């Protein structure tokens, strides 16, 4: 069944080495939303840092209290080691109180070797959201210009934007056609999470090879939707497959909530802002919970999923606030859901797997 076996999917380190060999530089990027095209315009390859899982969190623990989530704690530990010995710039987008605090600590108290650039993402409601973000991106442009000494033209930026938009479209197609792709869950998530570090052109090329293999046959397994921040440890996906489940759609911050539509404007900064703001509704944009619920229901309907697994990171307050309302809404529509909570440093627990297995048996 697996066509991934025929594909050579570069790893994170390979992608970085290859990009640097061509004279490029690396931007380490914290979750969740950011303008890829803007970084690429400065010949910076964005490489995302979602924790990462299973590293020694001692450094982070010396600076953050135990009730701060493991993504932020690990990230603080990780960036201090100058990951890959190659990160040239660190971008810290704003998303929640913890990431906000992380950005502040990195600027004020434990500065890494690289310049740290915070980016504020708007969560107001009015029409001026896009214009604020546009100006925020212009400010980021100026900072990158000062760091790199390079000033990309509008045409260069538009070219990068188009590359990224194409990759985003391919990513969205992969999600839409998930059940017709000859990929297991682990293969699918390895592929789509490669968007976290591959150059857009390379990702588009690989994604197209997979999309060319779309078939009529529908992937077997009990279809579920997974919601949360990220599917770590990734071994979880193999376990779900073995239990007879399959992830038919996702509302994960690292993937499904980042399917950006193309912007409309011909002005590059505004176009990038429009694209980012077009992402799925979530707390990170201040979207109403009802919008999140409707989005979730849409995913369930389109993927014919039979239930939802909320896969939460311990202490992720924004997710925890939405949970009861989302579950209540799903229950009203007779859609079963379950909640499991993880720390990205912990191995898969049997207790959690038993819970997911019981849930799959219930909805089968």
């Amino acid at each position, binding site marked *: 069944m697996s066509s991934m076996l025929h594909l050579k999917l570069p790893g994170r380190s390979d992608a970085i080495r290859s990009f640097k060999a061509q004279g490029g530089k690396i931007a380490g990027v914290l979750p969740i939303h950011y303008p890829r095209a803007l970084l690429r315009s400065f010949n910076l390859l964005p490489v995302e840092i979602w924790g990462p899982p299973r590293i020694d969190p001692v450094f982070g623990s010396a600076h953050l209290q135990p009730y701060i989530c493991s993504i932020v704690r690990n990230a603080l530990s990780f960036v201090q080691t100058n990951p890959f010995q190659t990160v040239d710039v660190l971008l810290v987008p704003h998303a929640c*109180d913890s990431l906000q605090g992380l950005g502040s600590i990195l600027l004020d108290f434990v500065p890494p070797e690289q310049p740290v650039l915070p980016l504020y993402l708007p969560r107001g409601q009015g029409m001026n959201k896009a214009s604020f973000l546009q100006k925020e991106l212009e400010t980021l442009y100026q900072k990158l210009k000062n760091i790199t000494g390079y000033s990309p033209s509008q045409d260069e930026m538009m070219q990068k934007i188009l590359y990224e938009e194409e990759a985003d479209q391919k990513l969205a197609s992969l999600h839409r056609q998930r059940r017709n792709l000859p990929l297991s869950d682990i293969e699918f998530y390895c592929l789509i999470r490669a968007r976290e570090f591959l150059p857009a052109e390379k990702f588009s090329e690989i994604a197209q090879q997979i999309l060319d293999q779309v078939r009529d046959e529908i992937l077997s397994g009990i279809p579920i939707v997974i919601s949360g921040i990220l599917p770590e440890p990734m071994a979880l996906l193999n376990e779900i497959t073995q239990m007879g489940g399959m992830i038919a759609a996702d509302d994960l911050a690292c993937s499904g909530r980042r399917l950006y539509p193309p912007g409309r404007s011909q002005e590059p900064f505004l176009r990038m802002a429009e694209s980012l703001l077009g992402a799925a509704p979530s707390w990170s944009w201040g979207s109403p919970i009802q919008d999140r619920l409707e989005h979730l229901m849409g995913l369930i309907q389109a993927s014919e999923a039979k239930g939802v697994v909320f896969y939460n990171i311990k202490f992720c*307050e924004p997710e*925890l*606030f939405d949970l*009861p309302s989302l579950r209540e809404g799903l229950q009203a529509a007779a859609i079963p859901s379950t909640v499991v909570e993880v720390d990205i440093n912990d191995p898969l627990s049997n207790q959690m797997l038993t819970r997911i297995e019981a849930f799959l048996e219930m909805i089968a």
Partner: protein
Amino acid sequence: MSAFGWLTYAWNVQLLGPAALRINRWLSESRDKRGSRWNAETLAPPLKISFKNKELVGRHWLEGRYANLRHKVAWVTSGAPVEIFKALDYYVLYPENHAAICGTARVAVELSCEAENAGYSRDICSYARTDFGTLLSGKTPVGRLPKPDLLVACTNICQTVLFWYRVLARHFHVPLIVIDTPFVYYKEASAHALDYVMRQLEEAISVAERVAGKSLEERRLRTTARLSKMASELWLEIMGRNAHRPAPISVIDQFIQMAPIVEMRGDPETVDFYAAMLEEVDQRIRQGIGAVKNERKRLLWDNLPVWYRLRYLAEFLGEHGIALVASTYTNAWGELAPMIDPDGGMDAMARAYTYPILNRGTRYKLETMREMIERFDLDGVILHSDRSCKPYSIGQMDQRDRLLKDHDTPALLLEADHNDSRSFSEEQIANRLAAFVEMLGVEKWQRSAHWG
């Protein structure tokens, strides 16, 4: 409003209620002559103004019970630009204050459990859980909460309020105004951030006008902003008086007396209240009265109070001759007073509401603490690592280290929660406080040693 509604409101809020509260104050004042329930050997008696405070706050919540009969009601966050809503005649309710009342009344855990039973995690803010508990159970120590017609969440104190108010919006099906104030990582907010906040304020006004069914009068907005500024300046002056030795009031007193500056900012009664409080504080200075008798060490408190253990902390520290003299938290409601410009329009309002300490970087807070240590001549700092308030708490570990290493100021990190007593380990806290007190070089105050 119906005639019956008008009569009900007038009878309860304007006649019977205030009279009952006034009588209650008189009775409390006369009872008080018999002495405080708190340790009178080491602590000064409560401020006389406390009884007025209780009456004022009581009237506010009494009005809340009947507010839906006469006013549009707005539930707002403590950092929201309340002047707009006051000037539009909204009855303004602060869910954070309500939760704090539940904390001091020690019903917060019971209410939190109601929320937890409905699926809300113990890892979310305990203020939010407390209020969700009230919504779900109807239980509250203030009688009854009025239903909101409008919700206003301003992110200048935390992002949590946005997540919290999204839940409220879904629960009540009323409009939610979000005033998103970009976090100030550097010394100054960017021009486009201030412009963004200003435009949101303009949009907020049009939504608030629509819900209120009336237009905002500039004259009334200016008057409310002026009253806000006056009250904030008085509050700042009161806190500034603690530069005296002994400090006339403690931070615990400030926590208790801060309710009006938070929930009644913009009211003339609030200005009168703080003017009277300032007089009493000055009188204490003239008489040489200190909040802690035999004041030997002076400390700074960082972060929210531990609402359900105010007395414990006051007495423990008081027994050792330690006064909590200043607090970054109570200071937050005064430090922006100079920025409030009643004639400055939306531009000035955007600036004032973008710069609260909680919307600024971790270094700014450290610098604020250093400045307060100098100004109030302090001997150490207690940093309350508040499980429920991540934005206030993140950075404290580095702030503590910097205070110790760079400023030679002893600093203690105290793990607790502002409203959830289940996160308050009394034994552990007593041990940590005892060790800190020892480090400060003070021993428990012995009555015989001083009274011969």
